[in-house]
């Protein structure tokens, strides 16, 4: 092998700054940032803006670090699944070892910095979230049980609780409700994705509900979880983080979400194939709007309360 061949190989595989950023799963991170920020701002204790900014930054880095460790662990299946083949490790831009070191360093860094900047309850919750996502979900549940997304969804549900803990230094019924809202929302959201990402999970050997119990059963599960989600989402409207505006938004969104789940349940594979999974894709998009709008409504209630308009008082 000549020098030239070595150089050209390095040229192809040289990781750029953006590749390391991609390891942090920026799209997932945006959800983490938004929900943590709402948790922090909805809390009854105000935080200095710089400390609030730092806390959100460290929570985002912690979430990103768990994403990097997830990519390190799942590199083998990411190479098989079409959706994940362009990620930094399967595409050869970053080695598995680099991703592991990067993820471990950022995990420790984010937890320590959050503890120093705010409090150790928030830091402990962040550490537990990283542990839950990497060890409980990625290493244990994901390849073992079709309930992977149900239990693993807890990892994505922790950020508003961490945000709340940053402000108050503790846990409250309101922060648990925000956790439960995301926890119950996650299964229908991912199962809708699994319905139209057809063969990806089967090819990779991931026991998604569509693979182990069939698509008809997945449609039933989506409807069941959507029905269970509605009272939690609407019930949150009667707590201190809710109010008339939140309640109106929640009722409308839950009606639309229930209708979407009902439509998914009524269809069979022949109908879905015929229109290119139109209903499932629409439900998936609606699920993103659903979560975003609920947290935005919580934030709106808090903002209105500053002018004596939000909440129930």
């Amino acid at each position: 092998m000549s020098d030239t061949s070595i150089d050209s190989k390095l040229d192809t595989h040289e990781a750029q700054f953006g590749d390391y950023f991609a390891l942090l799963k920026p799209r997932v991170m945006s959800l983490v940032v938004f929900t943590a920020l709402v948790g922090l701002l909805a809390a009854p204790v105000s935080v200095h803006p710089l400390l609030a900014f730092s806390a959100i930054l460290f929570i985002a880095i912690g979430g990103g670090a768990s994403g990097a460790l997830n990519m390190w662990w799942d590199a083998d299946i990411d190479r098989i699944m079409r959706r994940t083949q362009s990620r930094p490790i399967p595409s050869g831009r970053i080695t598995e070892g680099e991703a592991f070191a990067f993820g471990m360093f950022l995990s420790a860094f984010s937890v320590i910095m959050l503890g120093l900047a705010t409090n150790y309850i928030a830091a402990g919750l962040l550490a537990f979230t990283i542990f839950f996502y990497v060890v409980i979900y990625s290493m244990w549940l994901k390849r073992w049980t079709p309930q992977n997304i149900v239990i693993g969804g807890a990892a994505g549900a922790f950020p508003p609780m961490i945000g709340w803990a940053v402000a108050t230094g503790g846990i409250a019924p309101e922060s648990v409700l925000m956790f439960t809202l995301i926890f119950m929302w996650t299964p229908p959201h991912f199962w809708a994705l699994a319905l139209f990402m057809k063969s990806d999970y089967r090819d990779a050997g991931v026991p998604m509900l569509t693979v182990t119990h069939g698509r008809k059963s997945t449609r039933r599960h989506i409807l069941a979880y959507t029905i269970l989600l509605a009272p939690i989402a609407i019930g949150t409207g009667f707590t201190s983080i809710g109010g008339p505006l939140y309640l109106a938004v929640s009722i409308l969104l839950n009606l639309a979400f229930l209708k979407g789940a009902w439509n998914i349940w009524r269809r069979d594979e022949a109908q879905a194939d015929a229109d290119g999974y139109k209903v499932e894709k629409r439900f998936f998009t609606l699920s993103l709007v659903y979560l975003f709008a609920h947290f935005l409504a919580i934030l709106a209630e808090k903002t209105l309360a500053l002018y004596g308009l939000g909440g129930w008082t």
Partner: protein
Amino acid sequence: MSTAKTGLRVEHEIHKRRRSRNVGLGLVLGGFVFLIMGITYVKLTTQNAERAAEIRAKEAAEAAAQGTETSSTEEGSD
């Protein structure tokens, strides 16, 4: 292997390839330094203000207690 001579320094081709990484890391580290400075300033000023308020409250409580003692002594001497 391409190298470019600029005065006494030789810029290796690897420096060009890794420019985005190096610049990005430099900016991140610079930003981190400023963030730590900011956090330190906020924590110190907030904690000092809280400590000052505690001391003022303690002094006020002590003064009030002394005032009560003095008035009760005066009442006793009458």
